[in-house]
């Protein structure tokens, strides 16, 4: 899914504000946790900003489906099983899970989310 430049611009401004990072650091490929230094609580802040900026409603667990990651039927040895991956794909159709699928360690999921994923999430919500 191509990223709407207008959405990217607003997401970029949101991330600069919520994470105190410079505009040029917020590229489409940048990961929120690894490259931009987001911590878990920052995601709540980011969601506040996104709701306001795009006039959308984001339910708890919509961006990070904790229920899937903590459900024993979807996990094995701290990794999502095939059923879990299918559930995740269904819930987050806007995120490219190709890399995560190679080694789906539950704790690593948030650190794989990129700015582009965040933009696609907003696009998906606005549809």
């Amino acid at each position, binding site marked *: 899914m191509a990223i709407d430049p207008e959405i990217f611009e607003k997401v970029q401004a949101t991330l600069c504000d*919520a994470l105190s990072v410079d505009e040029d650091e917020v590229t489409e490929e940048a990961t929120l946790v690894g490259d931009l230094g987001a911590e878990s*609580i*920052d995601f*709540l*802040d980011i*969601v*506040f900003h996104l*709701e*306001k900026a795009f006039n959308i*409603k984001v*339910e*708890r667990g919509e961006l990070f489906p904790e229920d899937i990651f903590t459900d024993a039927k979807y996990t094995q040895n701290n990794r999502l099983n095939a059923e879990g991956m299918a559930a995740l794909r269904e819930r987050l159709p806007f995120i490219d899970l190709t890399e995560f699928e190679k080694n789906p360690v539950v704790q690593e999921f948030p650190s794989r989310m990129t700015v582009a994923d965040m933009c696609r999430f907003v696009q998906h919500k606005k549809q």
Partner: protein
Amino acid sequence: MRWYWIDRYTEFVRGTRATAVKCVSLAEEHMHDHFNHYPIMPHSLVVEGVAQTGGLLVSEFNECREKVVLAKLTKAVFYCEPRPGDVLTYRVQVQYLNANGASITATSHIGDKLHAEFDMMFAYLRDNDFGDKELFTMQDYKHLFFNFHVYDIGTEADGVTPISVPDCFKNI
């Protein structure tokens, strides 16, 4: 000593904004060591007072159903130091409030002088975040709100209609 870092509310507009005052006294124990020959109120305790002002505003709006905790201090800028005898006025404005938490902006003034500015975020703990442990009982909340005069001066969001004591505080 109780962990109260405001003395009372002077304005409480349900779910919207609030003003609270904190009288700084040399008799407060932390002033003895902070610092011995130059007592000032620690900035961290000002942050706590502002967080209490805003956190209780958010709690009351939810009739204390949520476990409201300070999650992020996005901005804290201090321009001067509170000394014994000063009265700090904390003004809090809710910027955003949803099912997951709230964000506020706030100022602290000493008289007319701007003392500090803040942006803060509150999150709601879910049961699995804190086990079965209750952070506060309904009775604790009731004491706080009554001690801080919330139901003497509080109004609905229109700023005029007095708020009534919610059902959760009746019969306890």
